[in-house]
């Protein structure tokens, strides 16, 4: 937003502009990250009351008895301070919400600039650029050498995408228009890499959207099923589960190597799907997944504890996770490198370069490029 043309942009009220700039600041994001980090540390030091336990009065009473036995007189104080529901506490949720807003503001703020850097960079650059760019050198070429061709070849060899443009001076007399023009070249490598930052920020927002979908539209139900019994799943799923068998496979030393529950899924009494639920291998029926949580009993007479869950946010979280990974990997490992070149009609070659990250590596490469060009022009 700071990149708007002041001539055309509608003036924003100063207070809004200040809030916007404040939200886009890196140190503000850092403070919010630190706040979330500290709250997470705090939350990890106390037992947390999970939603399934909170929803079940019997389990809640059991949980409260355990906590009260552990913390005694401090229990009420800790409970009032939200120590047992730290990740649902206003402080945590407000920090998270502010971080989301800051991420969104930062993304929108950087979008125009990053977009322009990726797609609308001018090839023609003035002499001034070569005084401000972090890396620069100048070479004098003998007459008759096609410098621009040599530069283009060397840059393309190094993976740069090269664009070329001619500069015709407007103040030159018309009879001199046949003179060779100044040639500008621009080389870009990993031109689209700056957009990875946007991918990363958008992935964080998508991730949080997935978490919201999970918590608002998802449900989880722990179901205990005795041998041969049929139990309804509930939550309007119309499903019922029947415990048909349970098998424990063992290693030669007698320790368990795997557990397999054979389950029949009945849907509104209309049909039946038989399948196995193993550790790490859930049984999926439509949008509902069944995982094995536990068992008790003796050989052939096992009561199973299954978790039936529907989670519409999970796929979003996974997609967001991989987008985040893509953004981070590209951002950190494929820096956008730019090389600007001016070939003056007098045979002077000016080269300037800049890399967004890994400046040290680029500095080395730039020195090598200078040596290569010098050799090629002389030879």
């Amino acid at each position, binding site marked *: 937003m700071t990149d708007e043309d002041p001539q055309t942009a509608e003036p924003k009220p100063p207070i809004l502009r200040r809030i916007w700039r404040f939200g886009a600041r*890196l*140190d503000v*994001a*850092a403070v919010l*990250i*630190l706040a*979330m*980090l500290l709250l*997470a*540390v705090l*939350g*990890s*030091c*106390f*037992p*947390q009351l*999970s939603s399934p336990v909170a929803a079940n009065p019997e389990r809640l009473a059991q949980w409260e008895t355990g906590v009260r036995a*552990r913390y005694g007189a401090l229990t009420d104080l800790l409970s009032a301070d939200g120590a047992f529901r730290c*990740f649902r506490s206003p402080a945590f949720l407000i920090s998270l919400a502010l971080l989301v807003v800051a991420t969104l503001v930062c993304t929108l703020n950087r979008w125009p600039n990053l977009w322009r850097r990726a797609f609308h960079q001018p090839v023609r650059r003035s002499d001034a650029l070569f005084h401000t760019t972090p890396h620069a050198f100048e070479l004098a070429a003998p007459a008759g050498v096609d410098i621009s061709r040599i530069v283009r070849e060397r840059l393309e060899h190094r993976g740069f995408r090269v664009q070329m443009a001619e500069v015709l001076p407007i103040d030159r007399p018309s009879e001199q228009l046949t003179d060779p023009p100044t040639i500008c070249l621009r080389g870009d490598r990993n031109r689209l890499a700056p957009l990875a930052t946007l991918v990363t920020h958008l992935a964080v927002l998508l991730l949080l959207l997935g*978490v919201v979908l*999970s918590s608002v539209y998802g449900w*989880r139900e722990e179901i205990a099923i005795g041998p041969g019994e049929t139990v309804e799943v509930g939550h309007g799923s119309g499903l019922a589960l029947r415990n048909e068998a349970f098998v424990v496979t063992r*290693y030669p*030393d007698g*320790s*368990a*190597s*795997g*557990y397999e529950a054979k389950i029949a899924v009945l849907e509104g009494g209309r049909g039946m799907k038989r399948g196995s639920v193993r*550790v*790490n*291998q*859930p049984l999926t029926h439509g949008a509902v*997944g*069944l*995982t094995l*949580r536990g068992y008790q009993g003796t050989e052939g007479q096992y009561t199973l504890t299954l*978790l*039936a*869950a529907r*989670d519409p946010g*999970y796929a979003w*979280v*996974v997609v967001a*996770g*991989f987008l*985040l*990974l893509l953004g*981070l*990997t590209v951002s*950190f*490992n494929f820096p956008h490198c730019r090389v600007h070149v001016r070939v003056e009609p007098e045979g002077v070659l000016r080269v300037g370069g800049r890399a967004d*990250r*890994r*400046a*040290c*590596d680029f500095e080395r490469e730039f020195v090598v490029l200078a040596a290569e060009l010098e050799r090629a022009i002389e030879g």
Partner: protein
Amino acid sequence: MTYGLLWLALAAYAADLVRGWRWMGRGATTVTLVAWGTLTGDLVKRGLGAGHWPLANRYEFALCFVWAIVTVYLLLEASWRERKGGAFVLAIALLVATWAITRPADERAISPLIPALRSVWLQVHVLTAAVGYGAFGVAAGLGLVRLLPRASLPGEEVERAMERAVALGFPWLTLSILTGAIWAQKAWGRYWGWDPKETWALVTWLWYLLILHVRPLRRWRGRRLAALAVAGFAVVLFTFVGVPWLVRTVRLESLHGF
């Protein structure tokens, strides 16, 4: 043997750092390479003996952690062409290695995989965590170099190498958390449950996210950033070693074996 070689390499790197003996530095790299080779061999042998990847308990993870620190450091040394951080990085590796070899015999014994760990996600999740932690170990070693009162290297150069190690480790840690979430969904029916181990993985991730955010801020560059990288490794160690202690001490519930 690997443990002894790592100490030898540390002494040689220290001699290069203090006395400026270049030949000693070259020797240190050679010994580190040999230590890397023997550790790789030990891990392969252990894996073949157990019939599964050596990632099934804290002892095996610690060995992979040391392997990752040494691997990342050797790669960094090769591209950076500088050995001055070697002594500190190997000190970090030896800290983890010492913890590993002081484990009780039953923890070091090869055992069959328990059903909960029989998943392809074990390899992906734990190995990516080891690589991420290894890179953070290297960053902490370089951070210690930067914190030296009389550094023998330009601070900016050390800082860049340190940042590079953090930038390498962060995507690996992200991948580890992501694959852990996928595994948790398959095993426990939820991808996130605020289990203490998950919470501390998030704390570690947030810490390095904080480093990446303050890195461009001028007042946070230099020693402050180095101190954050060193403290970050303390967070990593707590996530690895401290969380089981926290679970026991505060009597928390955790589904994570290690």
